[in-house]
């Protein structure tokens, strides 16, 4: 029998255009293959620093996003009632005139009446500049409901956290611990890294209530009870300190462990650092036995230093830590049950960390010089590393838990050393090198400075002259002093309540706030549609920009349709959230690899246009004419500081500028020629010890990350937190309201603590209280599937076949106790309400926890799906039973369902009870369908570019 003739070498495509993916937040490089100008195939870019050629399911399905029937087609003006989804298509001129007519009077009279929140924005250095020019203090992106606890705790502790700030040393680490993760936060790099560890046979420990994804391949799975990670980590700290398994040399040289702290409770300076006349914290110099500035040249700081001055005893941060964590309160026997673990398991992990860190240390023959002028012949590494993201941070104890994890890494001496955790330039950058928040709004003027930043004490809070919150989201107030990313999740409820004030226009971008990105989803619908006694909407105007027909679109008065990611310019900038690797500084662009076939515009170009129409500073020339043609023009020509612009590569007339240089009109072309990104390697001498390494500091100045060398120490003890405690104790001019004093004293501890997540409901922060809740005994979580990014994936014909349903996964004991069988349904109740959902059994799950996939459930009418799509009939959100406020406490007050330090949404504090119920026709609650502004998708998808 003869085989058919087969062409095994067909042409692949006519052209490859290289740009940056946006199917999630990971920002991989992609090769987009075109045939006859049409999208044919997407694969990873092998040269790209983020993904090195590989690509996840979302990235490969980008073609279905670019062709999705849910894409908005033209600007929309609301014709029906809010929430109906009834719109008429209008021209861009009409849309932009309308927006200008609404916004110009707001700016002239009171810019703070505009709340501008930009969701999953990757252009925050640009959108914040627009908001600053407008003059409103009310700007942030989505970090407040994502992972600000991890980011802020990292910045305050050591100058950066995970993901965009740094990564494990995948090539050298020997023991890797990963705590609860949202998969898109460094998606492909973590998978690449895990693959490297597996190939080398290095050990992986997964800490997560759910054993899926990365935890499935972990050598050791720690199925911890949600919200107790901090207690577990502090127990590891207890074991390590007790055994002396901490890196004393590292702690003495590179952290504030040797800094002297006032220990006299009767002193006004209690808990503050002892400082020299120049304000520098003091240590005892082991060489002289005398106090000296901690950063001074040649000083050998003493971890065991003590100093009595003016009758006040000062001891080191390290001595305070030893005393606190040696307490038997943190012994494995004391905490294991609460964590859902055994004492033996905690000890085993602590012992393994100690063994690998100290017995398997790695040494690299690379001399370097530290900031005190001491030359080191070698680089010594502690090859244990960690990664964590939203799983541990989306709790009301998430900031302190993330702090505990960063402190654990530092105690082991494993940060910025070979085999440990490594920062990615331009990080690390300590909290005081970041801006402070600004909130002074003046009619017709720009804001007095950047909105977001890192407070160093009560004096930096965003309060008005009466001490009231200056921002609509109450960021940087006594309720959440260190809310570095703002609180987008509180904007709608605060605006509706007129607390702290009413607004005129809510302007949002790329965040599905009427669905999966809000707590209390149905309540949010009521707030968005509520009318006053005159029949006017309580939130008078809503402008929304999105590329797709999301649930939020229906609640806008004016919709500005964005392009897909393949049709636009973007810059992934060093001014913002760059794509760097530990060994390289890098930035990247998106560019229109295909042209839109609809009347849509990139949102950033729309802001450029609106900025010019409104005459915003930075968007107009002196003569009032538009400064930039579009976003691409801004990317090329904007200058942030002398020589520093949005993109670092090919700057200057000679195109040789790397980091610094004048604008180059051909810069975007150079990026395109180079595959959509620019990268420069960190010199080998500068590869580790970045905060203290003179070679790195000099290189960073050359690249424009900062303007002069700025070495600093890791902050085991965060003194600014102590300043808030002092205010709560009655010291200082700015004083908190009385009802928050006790909470501030408890939660703003300058050394890591753990308190139960329930503390925010009960006001009882004691770690030893029972977690038994007879009424709501079960923890409930959601997690994002690897093949989906928030609500986007379900509109994708390929991805929705992978994750089209989201049962509630129930552990064995609860499954059996309820007599569940396959196909059953359960009512899931919280203090806030109930939902009825399909259940499925899962054994590899913490026995007190149920969970489901995030954002699979859809509202009928959204995303161009049929009304009988399983996402709309069987899919569900936990959001319905999570409220943005906790139930009233004994004093009648309701605290926000947020972390008290940063305001991060405490999604994973949810407690529920479940009971078997007869199967309803659809998951409950069923909401009325919304009209689709884009119709419905076709029955058949047969994607193939035919070439004639």
């Amino acid at each position, binding site marked *: *029998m003869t085989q058919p003739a087969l062409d095994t070498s067909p042409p692949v495509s006519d052209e490859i255009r290289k740009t940056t993916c946006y199917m999630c937040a990971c920002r991989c490089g992609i090769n987009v293959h075109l045939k006859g100008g049409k999208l044919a*195939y997407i694969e990873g870019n092998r040269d790209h620093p983020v993904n090195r050629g590989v690509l996840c399911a979302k990235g490969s*399905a980008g073609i279905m996003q670019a062709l999705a029937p849910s894409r908005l087609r033209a600007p929309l003006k609301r014709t029906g009632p809010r929430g109906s989804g009834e719109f008429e298509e209008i021209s861009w001129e009409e849309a932009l005139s309308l927006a200008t007519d609404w916004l110009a009077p707001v700016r002239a009279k009171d810019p703070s009446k505009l709340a501008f929140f930009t969701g999953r924005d990757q252009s925050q250095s640009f959108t914040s500049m627009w908001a600053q020019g407008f003059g409103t203090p009310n700007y942030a992106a989505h970090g407040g409901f994502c992972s600000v606890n991890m980011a802020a705790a990292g910045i305050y502790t050591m100058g950066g956290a995970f993901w965009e700030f740094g990564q494990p040393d995948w090539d050298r680490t020997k023991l890797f611990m990963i705590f609860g993760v949202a998969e898109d936060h460094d998606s492909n790099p973590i998978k690449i890294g895990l693959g490297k560890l597996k190939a080398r046979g290095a050990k992986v420990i997964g800490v997560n209530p759910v054993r899926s*994804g990365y935890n499935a391949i972990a050598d050791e*799975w720690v199925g911890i009870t949600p919200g107790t990670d901090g207690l577990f980590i502090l127990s590891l700290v207890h074991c390590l300190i007790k055994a002396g398994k901490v890196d004393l040399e590292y702690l003495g040289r590179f952290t504030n462990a040797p800094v002297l702290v006032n220990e006299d409770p009767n002193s006004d300076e209690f808990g503050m650092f002892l400082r020299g006349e120049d304000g520098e914290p003091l240590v005892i110099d082991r060489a002289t036995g005398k106090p000296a500035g901690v950063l001074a040249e040649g000083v050998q700081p003493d971890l065991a230093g003590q100093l009595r001055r003016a009758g006040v005893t000062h001891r080191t941060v390290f001595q305070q830590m030893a005393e606190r964590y040696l307490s038997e309160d943190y012994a494995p026997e004391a905490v294991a049950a609460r964590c859902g673990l055994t004492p033996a398991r905690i000890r085993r992990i602590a012992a393994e960390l100690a063994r690998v860190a100290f017995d398997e240390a790695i040494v690299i023959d690379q001399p370097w010089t530290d900031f005190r002028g001491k030359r080191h012949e070698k680089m010594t590494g502690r090859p244990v590393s960690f990664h964590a993201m939203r799983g541990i941070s989306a709790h009301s104890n998430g900031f302190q838990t993330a702090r505990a994890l960063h402190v654990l890494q530092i105690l082991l001496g494993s940060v910025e050393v070979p085999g440990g955790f490594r920062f990615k330039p331009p990080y690390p950058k300590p909290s005081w090198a970041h801006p402070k928040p600004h909130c002074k709004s003046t009619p017709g003027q720009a804001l007095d400075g950047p909105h977001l930043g890192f407070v160093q004490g009560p004096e930096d809070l965003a309060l008005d002259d009466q001490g009231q919150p200056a921002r609509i989201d109450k960021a940087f107030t006594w309720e959440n002093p260190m809310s570095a990313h703002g609180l987008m999740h509180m904007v709608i409820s605060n605006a509706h309540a007129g607390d702290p004030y009413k607004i005129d226009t809510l302007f949002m971008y790329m965040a599905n706030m009427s669905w999966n990105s809000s707590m209390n989803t149905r309540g949010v619908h009521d707030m968005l549609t509520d009318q006053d006694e005159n029949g006017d909407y309580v939130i008078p105007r809503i402008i929304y920009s999105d590329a797709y027909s999301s649930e939020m679109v229906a609640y806008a008065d004016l919709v500005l349709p964005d392009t897909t990611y393949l049709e636009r310019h973007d810059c992934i900038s060093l001014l913002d959230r760059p794509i760097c690797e530990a060994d390289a500084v890098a930035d990247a662009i998106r560019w229109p690899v295909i042209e839109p076939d609809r009347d849509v515009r990139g949102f950033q170009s729309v802001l450029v246009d609106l900025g010019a129409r409104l005459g915003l500073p930075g968007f107009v020339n002196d003569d009032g004419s538009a400064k930039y043609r579009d976003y691409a023009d801004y990317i090329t020509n904007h200058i942030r500081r002398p020589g520093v612009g949005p993109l670092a590569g090919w700057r200057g007339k000679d195109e040789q500028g790397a980091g610094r240089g004048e604008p180059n009109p051909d810069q975007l072309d150079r990026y395109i020629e180079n595959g959509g990104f620019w990268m420069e390697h960190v010199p080998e001498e500068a590869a580790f010890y970045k905060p203290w390494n003179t070679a790195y500091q000099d290189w960073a100045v050359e690249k424009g990350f900062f303007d002069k060398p700025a070495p600093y120490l890791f902050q085991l003890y965060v003194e600014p937190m102590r300043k808030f405690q002092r205010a709560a104790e009655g010291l200082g001019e700015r004083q908190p309201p009385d009802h928050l004093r006790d909470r501030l004293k408890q939660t703003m501890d300058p050394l890591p603590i753990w308190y139960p997540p329930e503390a925010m409901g009960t006001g009882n922060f004691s770690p030893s209280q029972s977690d038994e809740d007879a009424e709501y005994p079960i923890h409930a979580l959601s997690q994002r599937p690897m093949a989906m990014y928030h609500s986007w994936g379900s*509109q994708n014909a390929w991805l929705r*076949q992978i994750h089209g349903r989201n049962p509630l996964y129930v552990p064995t004991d609860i499954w059996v106790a309820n007599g569940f069988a396959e196909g059953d349904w359960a009512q899931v109740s919280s203090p806030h309400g109930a939902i009825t959902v399909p259940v499925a059994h899962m054994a590899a799950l913490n026995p007190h926890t149920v969970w489901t996939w995030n954002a699979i459930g859809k509202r009928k009418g959204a995303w161009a799906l049929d009304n009988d799509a399983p996402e709309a009939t069987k899919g569900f959100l936990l959001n319905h039973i999570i409220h943005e406020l906790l139930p009233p406490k004994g004093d009648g007050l309701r605290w926000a369902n947020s972390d008290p330090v940063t305001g991060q949404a405490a999604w994973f504090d949810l407690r529920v009870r479940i009971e078997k119920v007869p199967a309803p026709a659809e998951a409950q609650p069923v909401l009325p369908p919304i009209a689709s502004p884009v119709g419905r998708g076709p*029955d058949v998808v047969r994607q193939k570019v035919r070439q004639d």
Partner: protein
Amino acid sequence: MTSLPSQPSLKKMGLVIDLDTCVGCHACVVACKGWNTENYGAPLADKDAYGAEPVGSFLNRIHSYEVTPEVGPAQTVHFPKSCLHCEDAPCVTVCPTGASYKRVEDGIVLVNESDCIGCGLCAWACPYGAREMDPVEKVMKKCTLCVDRIYNDNLPEVDQVPACVRTCPAGARHFGDLGDAESDVSKLVAERGGFDLMPEQGTKPVNQYLPPRPRDAWVAEEDDDTQIDVLAPFLAPVAEEPKGFFGWLDKALERL
């Protein structure tokens, strides 16, 4: 009925899939869909693509299983599955038209779509469920091992591998000649104890799976009080009381 090649090919191109490393991310599933909808044969169609019962043809899918061992917690295994390009491929011999065939030169099992009548016998015959009827074209679809990539001179050499292998973020998929004992994939199989899927079916699959390494090894050790704890010295307290700790600290600092 259709014949297999009279002699098995010396070259046996296939995949080695590492179950120790696969995180179940579905990257391979979608990269495969993307490449193969644009290339070999009819596009991989999706019916009711935005509706109640979306049904599309995929050449590779991930299945997830739970395993509950006698000791230790339950485990999750992600199991990618596609055609295993069997030596004794029952899907070929059952084909009434000769559309299904096994290539003599490299052992790849293919469907010649122009001869396929969509009878579905091959899908019934395959013990692995690795073949899917395209819901629109009504021809049988299966993994081609990206026969239009692996010999494709229009691709750089490094990219002449199946789309699933090129994209796998964790590096859990390997491609090569399993007929050559000296190939990297054969060595990997030997080293890691690679196994045939369902050997009792007698299909002699070319593709190999690498087993998950033992998980949760510490659990048994932690539960066993009779064992000597070799790690105990690493947590031996330097002192029993905080005061003693500071004494130790002083001495330790002296040694630095």
